[in-house]
């Protein structure tokens, strides 16, 4: 279905043929990109799911511990205990290129190396439940960071896959068929022109011969 008007000329034909080759090549490349992205994405999203379940369970457990701590300790004491944290977490980010998608890679470091610095309070006035709670939360933290990395990667890759898929579909179902019909239309038109020229020439030749030799008059005699 040639919706747009095309000039049936040889130049246009060459141009369209070149365009078709490019489109075919692009289509193949994009399709490969999509397939590979999809493969990696599915791996990653499975990992994401497992990790998320793990983190959610971890946080749930930590929250339960905090509940216990709140029950056993005065709210004010608890506030004071966690008011001035000793530990601090810094993130270093870099990007990893997966099929032209820049996915983030986080590496974290803490301000002090001492693992016990998560307890920012003296142990005298708080219950042991608080220690447990803080400890259980700190054990989830590495997984939480990993989850952040993977979940963000999944989101970015999903967006890229969607984009690529649309491009592949546009090429496959719109661009390439359109070009093919246009090329076919031009070829037919050119062939038709050629035939009509040939017929015209034959006719002219007939007429010229007729003028020169008067075949029809002779035939009549």
């Amino acid at each position, binding site marked *: 279905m040639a919706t747009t008007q095309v000039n049936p000329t040889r130049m246009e034909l060459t141009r369209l043929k070149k365009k078709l080759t490019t489109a075919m090549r692009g289509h193949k490349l994009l399709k490969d990109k999509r397939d590979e992205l*999809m493969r990696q*994405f*599915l791996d990653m*999203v*499975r990992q*994401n*799911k497992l990790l*998320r*379940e793990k*983190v*959610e369970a971890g*946080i*749930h457990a*930590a*929250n339960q511990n*905090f*509940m216990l701590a709140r029950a056993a300790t005065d709210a004010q004491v608890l506030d004071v205990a*966690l008011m001035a*944290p*000793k*530990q*601090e*977490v*810094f*993130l*270093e*980010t870099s*990007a990893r290129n997966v099929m032209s998608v*820049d996915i*983030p890679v*986080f590496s*974290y470091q*803490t*301000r002090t190396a001492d693992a016990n610095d*998560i*307890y*920012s309070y003296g142990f005298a006035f708080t219950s042991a439940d608080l220690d447990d*709670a*803080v400890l259980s*939360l*700190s054990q989830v*933290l590495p997984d*939480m*960071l990993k*989850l*952040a*990395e993977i*979940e*963000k990667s*999944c*989101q*970015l*890759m*999903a*967006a890229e*896959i*969607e984009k690529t*898929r649309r491009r592949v579909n546009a090429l496959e179902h719109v661009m390439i068929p359109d070009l093919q019909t246009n090329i076919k239309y031009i070829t037919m038109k050119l062939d038709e022109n050629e035939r009509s020229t040939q017929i015209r020439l034959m006719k002219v030749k007939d007429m010229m011969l007729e003028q020169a030799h008067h075949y029809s008059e002779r035939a009549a005699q």
Partner: protein
Amino acid sequence: MYKIAVMGDRDSIYGFAALGLDTYPVYDPNEAVHTLRRLAEGNYAVIYMTEALAAQIEEELDRYRSQQLPAIILIPGISGNTGRGIASVKRSVEQAVGSDIIFGNDN
């Protein structure tokens, strides 16, 4: 050097302060949007947010989905798991594949 923030209701997030994450207790959705914008423009690469709070500012979160930083990750709050976190993973799958092939139809 980036930092990590945690947003949500105070009871759900105050424990994270001990680990050295920056906690931002917010309750009001409008306030949450403002805080989120400020954090996203600031020095935060990862922002954890409770599912309950995230449910109220969903449109705002969508803006950050396609950006490389910050990563906004939902975590269950003290009131329990609402399944919104896993739903966001599910959404990624649906966006990429066209239909959900990882989680099945059970949830």
